[in-house]
């Protein structure tokens, strides 16, 4: 049975847009981070699909995905560390309260 590529591509695009929507609307920093993870995962799946369907002879997309997963993990670790540092001082991780510097 063959599933056409479009049935994979539409969900990843929806995932990516959900990530952008969540990043913009959420106020909790952890939720914003989760939204970004959603976007990064959409990218990973996209690479794998293109590799699997369009260029099955090579592994470039798969390799990129492996590296992208590691990079995403490093990014999340650093962001969590900074959020924890903020939480220790504020007891609060709501972005609408972090407004000391503005125009």
């Amino acid at each position: 049975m063959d599933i056409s590529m479009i049935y994979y591509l539409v969900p990843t695009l929806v995932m990516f847009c959900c990530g952008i929507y969540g990043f913009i609307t959420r106020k909790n920093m952890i939720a914003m981070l989760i939204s970004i993870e959603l976007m990064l995962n959409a990218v990973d799946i996209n690479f794998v699909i293109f590799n699997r369907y369009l260029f099955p002879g090579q592994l470039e997309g798969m390799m990129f995905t492996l590296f992208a997963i590691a990079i995403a993990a490093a990014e999340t670790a650093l962001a969590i560390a900074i959020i924890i540092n903020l939480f220790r001082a504020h007891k609060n991780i709501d972005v609408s309260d972090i407004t000391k510097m503005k125009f």
Partner: protein
Amino acid sequence: MDYSQFLAMKQEIGVLVVFLLVFLYDTFMPRKGQAVLPLVATVLFACFTAFCFVTPWPDSIDAFAGMYASSTVIVAIKNILNVGVLIVLIQSIKWANSETTAIRRGEFYELLLVTLFGMYLMISARHFLLFVIGLETASLPLAAMVAFDKHRHESREAAIKYILTAIFSSAIFMMGLSFVYGLTGSLYFTNIAMAIAAGGTVSSLLVLALAFVISGIGFKLSLVPFHLWTADVYQGAPTSVTSYLSVISKGAAAFAFMVILTQVFGAVYSQAWEWMLYALIILTITVGNLFAIRQKNLKRFLAFSSVSQAGYIMLGIMADNAVGAAALMFYILVYIFSNLAAFGVVQAVENASGKVDMDSYKGLYKTNPRLSFAMMLAMFSLAGIPPFAGFFSKFFIFTSAISQGSIAIYVLVLIALINTIVSLYYYLLVVKAMFISDDDCVIPTFRSAGSERLGLWITVAGIVGLGIVSCFYNYLLDITSII
């Protein structure tokens, strides 16, 4: 595998060696020796910079199946960045030894060297996987550097704003890359360029992918719709980190941006990205200038000024020819000297009195004439007043853009010129505050540390020297015309 390929990446390995030496010194040196760590790191880096200048510059080599490339131009831009980093290191010695920072000063140097390594990879990458790794290696440690004063609220706030926008932008950038991969089946710069050129018509998916890629790098360069993090991060970060962020990080990103747009997407210049860049440049220069006018904090002010300077740098990419590349590199070189002079003065005043507001600079000339003079030269150079280097860098970048010859480019350069006049107003506001205005509580006379004075002397010499001596620009023009 041919291990001699590693010899192609002399600069990268050099930075790693300096990093390891500083790391070992920081880890194993007893407490007594720790106080000279900033000095040791600076001297080591100076040796490395000298080594990069002395060692033969390759004509053109690539390594690792074409993923990594080096050429005279690439070595030249790396050397330009090296000089900038050296000045940043010299200027930050006093801050690194200050009471609050002293306990973790080693980390500042280690993180800084790692980010520099990432920027080198960005510049040399000829495959998008290596480029993304370089981009992340450059931007993640920077977030840790922005959060360096972790007990100060502004620093924490700046760090969270920086890291969230950085990850968001790299997610968008990688989404663009996945579309490019789907269209062309490769991540090598040359293969993508060939596939695009062979494709004939421009598909709408390619335009979308290009928009994603441009906005992803636009975040790093703080071009205007994506610039909102800039002012907050520049204000909140420690001043040494801000000066590093504003010149070195921006210079590396601008050069890498040019490489991507011209080498990968060069075939679709007029169909796809010319107009995107056109709109970005106008917005960046204008909005950066207009927001700079109303800033009271000098670090925020320099942030918006650097936003508008990024717009001028983009004009060199717009030219899409060898003259544009030379003008862009010369602009980065001059920008490094002028902006570091301004940040050097801000840092010296902040270290001595803790003040960064423009109002507190009133009457500075009466108490600290030399510092005000250095600041005046920096402002003149940033604004582009003739005898100084800033005038020539702007002149060359406008000339290279005009050489395209279309009416639209003339209009663009005209808008940039009008904006130069606007920028003159706010740069001179600082000069007016220092020289003409008077205040009751003037910053008292102080003697800045020897390292800060050395840094300022170098930058002032650069501002004046690059304006008078023409051989630097001629040299850059020579090497860029070869490729």
